[in-house]
């Protein structure tokens, strides 16, 4: 289980996260929902060790990953799909996936399983990542993270800017990853995505978790979520 216990983090003097606490269980999708600037992406970066903590700690199955150097965090079993994909654009699809495999020394079977979710990537292995379409790039970003065979998968707006068919493919992959037992922390702005994917939803504002709710409750009363997201 991934636990964030009273964490504080920010950029220089600008404090973004303040005493933020949440947990993500294996086999569930926890969605972080909040307005722009609430601290969702910073939470992801703090988990990955890319933003230093000023308070609190982060543990994965009892291991304090917030005390590890950033490059050791993925080795502990955390895969990251950042906002905007951030692929290694000049490298080929195969090289991007190889970097994912190298992160934890995963066997080739893990790559096969990732490619089974996105069979289109098999035809693009020699192509540079920056030449793929937006949807294919998102598939590659997901597959690269899945190559770590992660216990926890962090997804920051994975369907942003994609056409409907691609969105469905990504959502199906997210559900499949949950079914394999991974804990998924998802940042989403789209209410339909939040309601269709999440098991629980953490409402975040000004760097704090205001409330964590079962998704079922919000499906019955999604105006509360709309109010919170400011849409």
């Amino acid at each position, binding site marked *: 289980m991934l636990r964030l216990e009273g964490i504080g983090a920010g950029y220089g003097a600008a404090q973004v996260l303040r005493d933020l606490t949440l947990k993500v269980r294996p086999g569930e999708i926890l969605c972080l929902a909040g307005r722009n600037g609430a601290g969702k992406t910073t939470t992801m970066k703090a988990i990955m060790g890319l933003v230093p903590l000023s308070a609190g700690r982060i543990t994965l199955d009892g291991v304090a990953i917030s005390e590890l150097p950033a490059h050791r965090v993925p080795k502990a079993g955390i895969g990251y799909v950042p906002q905007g994909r951030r692929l290694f654009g000049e490298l080929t699809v195969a090289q991007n996936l190889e*970097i994912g495999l190298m992160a934890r020394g995963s066997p080739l079977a893990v790559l096969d399983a990732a490619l089974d979710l996105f069979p289109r990537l098999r035809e693009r292995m020699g192509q540079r990542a920056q030449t793929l379409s937006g949807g294919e790039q998102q598939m590659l970003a997901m597959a690269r993270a899945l190559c770590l065979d992660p216990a926890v998968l962090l997804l920051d707006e994975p369907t942003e800017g994609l056409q409907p068919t691609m969105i469905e493919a990504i959502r199906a992959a997210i559900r499949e990853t949950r079914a394999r037992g991974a804990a998924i922390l998802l940042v989403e702005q789209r209410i339909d995505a939040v309601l269709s994917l999440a098991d629980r939803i953490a409402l975040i504002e000004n760097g704090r978790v205001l409330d964590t709710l079962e998704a079922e409750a919000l499906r019955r009363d999604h105006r509360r979520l709309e109010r919170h997201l400011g849409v």
Partner: protein
Amino acid sequence: MEFGPHLVLATLEGAVTAAVLALTAVGLSLVFGVMRVVNVAHGEFFMLGAVLAWWVTSLIGGPPALGFAAALVVAPLLVGLLAAAADMTVLKRIDYDPERTIVATIGLLYILQQVTLMTYGADARPVEPPFNTRLAIPWVTFAEGRPQLIWPWGLGTTSYKLAVIGAAAAVLAGVWLVMTRSRIGLLMRATQLDRDMALAFGIPVERIYALVFGLGAALAALAAVLIVPISQAHYLMGGDPLLLSFIVVIIGGLGSLPGTLVAAILIGLSDGIISVFFSPTLAKILATLLVALVLVFRPQGLFGLRAA
């Protein structure tokens, strides 16, 4: 000597300059490309390579080839280790901040230069080449409408100079193979493309930085070992390679290895040809003018990518 043979001679001299310059500049380009560090001390790593080559060959004695072969291994290795240590103790501590690393490497430049002056002295010292057979180059003239092979006086080179060109080409091919075909090269390129994502995929970025800084310095030192039998080792010899390397890297495109190579050949050959026909000073003036033109009309360099 007629114009044709004179041009061949100048081109050969330029090719030697280009070969050594390409090695030195690729080291600088590698460091900037992967680490975004402008290493002002790069010329001093070159100088240290030459001084260590003198030291190793003097220490070993015996046949020149033996000492030179040892210098080819020892000097780049020691300089590379020194640079990696400087990275870990200085650059890492200032978090590779672009402005502060410039100041830090200026400091490193003066430390290396003055320590060399205090220990090695101010004299320029020669290193004997491992072999140095004189090779005459034939020229074809037409007498009474028929081609005739002649051996113009002064048209020639040495086996050592040709070996320098060959060795530099082999090392550059090796660097290219490492960067494009090896696992460590893949990690370096990933770090170059996105430092944070490299960390997020378990790449030990700080170790990669130390390796790259050491490798860049070792390439400069290797270039110096190759050229020192032709020039001489002196504690102030780092200035010209630094200036020319910056010229090459700016023209080629910061961080672009193919661009660096093409620009090194362009600058090296033009430096050799203009120096022979006119003067070395004019060659430097024209190279600097070319940099100014590139900065005005194509700031990203010939092969660099325009910033988004």
